């Protein structure tokens, strides 16, 4: 019997050693339900067993942090008595199997994390990673993921305001769907996912429990090649209408102070919500699965406990508030059931009626064993980085520019964001495509909040440490380009199988890079998500995704009317480059898209220069001196300048050699991706003031040229190119619509 159970433990994701730990922890042979519950809680998805030691090294503190890691979402103070809740989460594996529902339920889950904190969701952003755009697999996945996000977010009525779309061969079978949500709340409504005091009752609210999503947490923690087809029912189906009702009811319960604790039922459903709430309170729980609403008959306690049916919440309610809570839920026509009580002691007890099926120490199941390894860099990656393959000659710069402007990852994403309702709630001040970050106002205050998601797969593949630093730097730069001061980060750490030492190495390096950059730019990480085992088999080869530490960053504007967008507003503005252009083409979009070359060292990230350039940009915007700014990232300065002409059809003439270091190649001037660069447009009347301010703040700056005309004119030394803005527009807008038709 014991041996039989030990072998069954592996079905629930427990290794033999972990099973032994469980036996030791309970002091007897565990029941099958205990094994199932522990397996779910000790999965990577819930227990972070491979990542927790690394995550502990990340900075999470700062005067602005109201809630750091460990709750449903992080919260930062934005003044005026308000908190900004934000969090990012992945739905990678479900989206690989069923893109529409996989992505849709990803939106649903992250929204519940936000309103469980007491915050009203105000925006969604998505970071999506796919294989080559024109591969049939991508043409199946991408439209499905977009439809899933649109279908859910649009119906709930939360605008999807921004995102980041990147392509790389290694995402082909294992796309990434990382979704970030933001919410705003009065600070005093900040909630905790706790059971509260002994005697409180646990109230289950929302969708009845079915067999859908069974074992999803375990599924998400296994690699796709072995798990996907058999686990098809592990993908859940979303109901945004129900979510909307649950959202409104939850916020009303919190606003009227009728509940002591709130938790969304996400990964591992009832199991993790109840276990985590008990752990945070340091209490025991008595749960009766017989009282859990079900949509199917004959469900076993294990199925009920592990189901990941969507749109479910758990509340802890003081007995005196029972009737008031039920009245609210009835008004929203929501199903609810009293499923347990908070008890003295430290036991997580699961009953079915009178029968006790599990009796586990709360701390044991919440403190998954952790694994640390010493990673080893992949020799192939090291060789690719240390042996940069030379690039062929540039050829025609006009062709190179228009090709790059149409390249997946740079081309306009209009075809995607026009499917998202980005205006609902009437707070979207800067809509998708108009600037480097989204900006939302907070009605009733002068405030704005800004948000962005960033990461470059090529940089991270070649050098995960530098790639992670660059992701943080770019996110902060994007916020600075709309005039927002960065406040905090939510990270989504997507990697392959951490048991492989070369993947673990990537995790170690990426986390170290995040740590350094977040400390330097004063953006504590208030929470996030880890998604491992993102790999697939291609014949005999195992392909891991590029290390993908997605950075979601939020910031604030004291006066939302003082913000910047990327489009040139009219003729006659002086164009300045802040920062330096170095001959950095390794890992660039130019090298990848025009020459299929992904070798060498990615651009260096000078965090001190970044901080100075970004602060100067923010201050110029906040003081009303500048309302046009755009950073240099994928595709370099030439792409930045081209993109600035598009929104309002205003051309420009610029000397791309300005600000280029001695000996920089023409390709480097045009398409090099040196970090820490921002282009601003300065109205003529402010030129002298801006120049003096930049000198005083020790920011390198260079005059590129001026806005005007209907062409993009780039010159260097004694040569120049001229491209009509409408030609650029055709290139930029032409790529994605066909795939999304």
């Amino acid at each position, binding site marked *: 019997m014991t041996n039989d159970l030990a072998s069954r433990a592996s079905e629930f994701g427990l290794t033999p050693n972990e099973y032994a730990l469980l036996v030791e922890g309970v002091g007897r042979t565990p029941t099958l339900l205990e094994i199932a519950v522990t397996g779910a809680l000790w999965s990577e998805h819930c227990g972070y067993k491979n990542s927790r030691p690394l995550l502990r090294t990340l900075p999470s503190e700062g005067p602005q942090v109201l809630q750091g890691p460990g709750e449903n979402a992080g919260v930062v103070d934005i003044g005026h008595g308000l908190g900004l809740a934000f969090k990012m989460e992945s739905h990678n594996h479900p989206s690989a199997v069923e893109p529409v529902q996989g992505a849709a339920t990803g939106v649903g889950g992250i929204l519940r994390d936000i309103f469980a904190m007491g915050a009203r969701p105000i925006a969604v952003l998505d970071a999506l990673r796919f294989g080559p755009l024109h591969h049939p697999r991508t043409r199946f996945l991408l439209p499905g993921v977009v439809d899933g996000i649109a279908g859910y977010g649009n119906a709930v*009525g939360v605008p999807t305001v921004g995102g980041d779309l990147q392509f790389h061969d290694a995402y082909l079978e294992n796309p990434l769907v990382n979704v970030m949500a933001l919410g705003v709340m009065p600070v005093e409504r900040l909630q905790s996912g706790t059971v509260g005091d002994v005697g409180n009752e646990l109230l289950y609210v929302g969708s009845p429990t079915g067999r859908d999503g069974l074992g999803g947490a375990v599924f998400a923690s296994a690699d796709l090649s072995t798990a996907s087809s058999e686990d098809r029912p592990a993908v859940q189906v979303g109901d945004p209408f129900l979510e909307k*009702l649950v959202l409104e009811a939850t916020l009303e319960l919190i606003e009227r102070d009728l509940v002591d604790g709130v938790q969304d039922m996400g990964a591992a459903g009832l199991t993790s919500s109840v276990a985590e709430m008990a752990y945070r309170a340091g209490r025991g729980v008595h749960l009766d699965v017989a009282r859990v609403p079900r949509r199917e008959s004959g469900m076993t306690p294990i199925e009920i406990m592990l189901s990941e049916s969507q749109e479910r919440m758990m509340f802890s309610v003081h007995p005196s508030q029972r009737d008031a809570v039920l009245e609210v839920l009835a008004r929203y026509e929501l199903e609810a059931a009293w499923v347990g009580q908070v008890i003295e002691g430290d036991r997580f007890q699961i009953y079915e009626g009178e029968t006790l099926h599990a009796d586990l120490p709360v701390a044991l199941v919440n403190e998954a064993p952790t694994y640390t390894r010493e990673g080893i860099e992949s020799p192939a990656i090291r060789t690719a980085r240390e042996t940069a393959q030379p690039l062929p000659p540039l050829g025609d710069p006009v062709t190179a520019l228009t090709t790059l402007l149409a390249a997946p990852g740079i081309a306009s994403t209009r075809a995607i964001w026009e499917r998202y309702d980005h205006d609902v709630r009437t707070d979207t001040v800067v809509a998708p495509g108009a600037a480097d970050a989204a900006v939302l106002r907070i009605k009733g205050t002068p405030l704005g909040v800004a948000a962005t998601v960033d990461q470059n797969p090529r940089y991270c593949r070649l050098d995960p440490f530098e790639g992670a630093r660059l992701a943080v730097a770019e996110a902060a730069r994007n916020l600075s380009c709309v005039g927002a001061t960065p406040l905090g980060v939510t990270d989504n750490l997507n990697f392959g199988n951490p048991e492989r030492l070369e993947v673990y190495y990537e995790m170690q390096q990426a986390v170290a890079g995040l740590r350094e950059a977040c400390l330097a730019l004063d953006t504590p990480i208030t929470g996030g998500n880890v998604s491992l085992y993102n790999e697939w088999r291609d014949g005999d080869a195992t392909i891991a995704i590029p290390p993908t530490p997605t950075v979601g960053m939020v910031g604030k504007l004291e006066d939302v009317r003082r913000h910047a967008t990327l489009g040139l507003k009219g003729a006659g503005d002086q164009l300045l480059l802040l920062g330096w252009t170095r001959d950095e083409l390794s890992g660039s979009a130019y090298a990848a898209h025009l020459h299929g070359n992904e070798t060498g060292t990615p651009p260096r990230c000078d965090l001190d220069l970044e901080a100075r350039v970004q602060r100067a940009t923010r201050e110029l915007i906040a003081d009303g001196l500048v309302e046009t700014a755009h950073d240099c990232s994928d595709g370099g300065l030439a792409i930045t300048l081209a993109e600035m002409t598009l929104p309002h059809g205003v051309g420009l003439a610029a000397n791309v050699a300005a600000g280029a270091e001695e000996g920089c190649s023409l390709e480097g001037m045009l398409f090099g991706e040196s970090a820490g660069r921002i282009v601003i447009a300065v109205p003529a009347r402010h030129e002298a003031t801006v120049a003096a301010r930049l000198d005083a703040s020790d920011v390198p700056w260079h005059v590129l040229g001026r806005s005007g005309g209907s062409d993009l004119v780039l010159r260097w030394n004694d040569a120049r190119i001229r491209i009509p803005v409408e030609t650029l527009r055709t290139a930029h807008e032409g790529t994605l619509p066909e795939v999304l038709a």
Partner: protein
Amino acid sequence: MLACAETKAEGDSATNMPIAIVRFPGSNCDQDAEWAFRDVLGVDVTLVPHASHELGPVDAVVLPGGFSYGDYLRSGALAARSPIMQAVTAFANRGGPVLGICNGFQVLTEARLLPGALARNDHLHFTCKDVHVRVETDAAPYFTRTYRSDVLTLPVAHHDGRFDADDETIARLEGEGRVALRYVRSDGLPDPSANPNGSRNDIAGILNETGNVLGMMPHPERAADDLLGSEDGLKILGSLVDTLAGAAAGASA
């Protein structure tokens, strides 16, 4: 044409009564409409739940956008059968002004307060973007009385926005001047590229026979603040508010 004072059937106050915004389960533009009327235009607003059988004393009714009941059946079909819709129908039949925006327009057609139907967009996808609409009539005293031939920039955000009806109905709508809004280019001229959903005759909004019920797919409440890019929606919402204020002043004189 109906005299405006007659709409004050449920009250006798000379001052304005609130504008009712009906909240169906799944409405998600109710707060946006509330903000536009109350915070921008400064009029009283009351949110009326779908389960209510009465509107109470109100001057006008707004059916907001969203996904009522998830729109899992035909868009607006379930909401049209909510208890409150009997009261809305009675209010409209007495000549009271009713504005349906997006999902509200779909509800009005499902409730047969307006003819035709809103079918799936011809490209089959949800679409959210700014469009241009031309005001086509001055026969709607509550909504567009002084703005005929204006071209307004308004956002659309819908999956089922393609207005369709049988030929006879279309001919009647056109012949009676009941096409209130039409999708056009920014210069006011019709063009297939200006129509975001394949609506027949580029129809973006229509009136009932008596001109007091307007259904429109674009969102005027989303174009009520230049910080968000356009104030053109205020021409429609403000027209309603001005008319009601004029009626109140007339009644008290």
